[in-house]
């Protein structure tokens, strides 16, 4: 009897210790984020203003703002997403719904996407430069930058969307089929809405990577910091701007901090927006006639 009690005591100590350890580790991870955010705010908050967000940079970015750079970043992102999303989601639908898991075709596509996911971004940059800028004659432009990013985003978008579709219970497919619904209708009306949260999560990861990308854009969208007139103009992305200010411009630390703060806040906003979007989509599907 006594032995049982001491065992329990020992186990409860161990449980508490492990619990404490997990709390500490979580705290540590959160602390890293808070520290980065704090550092950015400390270094860049004073420089932040409405003028900084809207004005063009002067003196290589030491003064002035990041207006054109924000516009270029958003345009590059838009081009990348408009190109990559339809491709990625249709590929995911094909892999998850139409091709048997064991088929050679599916395996080959999955393998090539895995390889693509492992390619360093600088290699994408070189490929984009050679193919989009030179071979297709798009030059250093927002368009070639966006298309290069689209190639980079494909693996992450496909794999998250495929996982999302596969996670939808098989019973939905069976009952839809038993009601005489076609596969296409099942996919569009049931499976994609059910997978919407995962699709949004994948989209987020993609946007995060795209907004933060530097190396792939160096050789494709270039680093002209003027306001772009069209998609065929060169445009400097925000991450590239930060890199340039921090590495190549003496005295550019404060604007670099401020730009990084803008980038992080932008990512946070996109995050919250996408989550709300997924939630709203689900609700609309449930509520609508």
């Amino acid at each position, binding site marked *: 009897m006594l032995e049982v009690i001491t065992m329990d005591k020992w186990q409860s100590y161990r449980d508490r210790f492990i619990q404490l350890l997990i709390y500490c580790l979580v705290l540590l991870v959160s602390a890293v984020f808070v520290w980065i955010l704090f550092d950015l705010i400390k270094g860049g908050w004073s420089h932040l203003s409405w003028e900084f967000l809207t004005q063009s940079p002067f003196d290589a970015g030491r003064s002035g703002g990041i207006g054109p750079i924000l516009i270029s970043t958003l345009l590059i992102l838009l081009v990348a997403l408009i190109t990559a999303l339809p491709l990625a989601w249709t590929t995911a639908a094909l892999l998850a719904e139409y091709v048997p898991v064991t088929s050679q075709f599916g395996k080959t596509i999955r393998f090539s996407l895995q390889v693509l996911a492992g390619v360093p971004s600088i290699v994408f940059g070189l490929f984009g430069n050679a193919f989009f800028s030179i071979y297709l004659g798009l030059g250093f432009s927002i368009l070639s930058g966006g298309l290069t990013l689209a190639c980079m985003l494909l693996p992450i978008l496909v794999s998250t969307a495929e996982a999302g579709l596969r996670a939808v219970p098989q019973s939905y497919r*069976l009952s839809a089929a038993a009601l005489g619904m076609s596969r296409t209708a099942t996919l569009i009306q049931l499976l994609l809405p059910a997978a919407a949260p995962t699709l949004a999560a994948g989209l987020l990861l993609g946007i995060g990577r795209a907004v933060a990308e530097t190396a792939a854009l160096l050789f494709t969208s270039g680093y002209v910091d003027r306001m772009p007139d069209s998609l065929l103009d060169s445009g400097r992305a925000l991450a590239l701007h930060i890199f340039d200010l921090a590495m190549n411009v003496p005295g550019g630390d404060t604007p670099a901090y401020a730009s990084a703060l803008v980038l992080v806040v932008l990512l946070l906003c996109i995050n919250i927006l996408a989550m709300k979007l997924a939630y709203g989509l689900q609700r609309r599907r449930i509520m609508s006639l």
Partner: protein
Amino acid sequence: MNATPDNSLQNSCNCDDAYTLGPLQVGPPCCDPQPVIQVENLSLQYGGKTALEKVTLDIYRGCITALIGPSGCGKTSFLSAINRLIDLIPTCQISGHIRVDGEDIYDPGTNVQALRRKIGMVFQKPTPFPLSIRRNITLPLREHGITQRHKVEAIIEQVLRDVGLWDEVCDRLDTAALSLSGGQQQRLCIARALALNPEILLMDEPCSALDPIASGVVEDLISRLSGRYTIVIVTHNLAQARRIANYAAFFWIKERAGQLVEFGHCRHIFESPTHELTAAYVNGSRG
């Protein structure tokens, strides 16, 4: 085979006021054995492993046929062969013939969507879509080209009344179907199948995931549906099969493959089975 009408069936044809099943369709009396599904030498294999071997069986129009037998003897496979749901399993191979209304459903020219409209199916676990109650019914209707608003509304009310759900949900048709209780969800699934106006209903243990009261409600509903629909039901609840079925088919596993041992009037299977395996199973001494 005994052609006199079954007593239990006559009772079940009297509609309760709470359920408005509408006028019964004109057809042969419930137990005039007129085959609507003819299964001939049906064998099923999953990736080379035989699940069902040489089943020959007639399902009669307007009757409830219960499929009984131990787990893994191929009852569910048999059921999903009838509406070609096993097409969704890539490794499945089928041989033999299934004729519905005289037409071989495994004929290459068969319109599978139309077939599945004619043959509704209800699963073991209630499977409402994560949509509103209304959209659970309108979605398949729209897929089959029924979109006029007044027609759709009429069908929704009709089928929800048929399953006795109308009074419970008529004021909240636009709330999530998943917010219903298990028994209500299962009745919604039956209503959803009825909305397509099928001839045949396949039911795969429709009560086994429900609590006893909800199970009783669904069971009553099933016996009310007989006569108007041909029902094939898989059940592990022998008492239930005995209560509601007109015919029973007993499956057993022989050499790792499911086989049909005996088929006949429910009363015969339960009271005077010809096969000793059947007798042992229904008496509870085997299986």
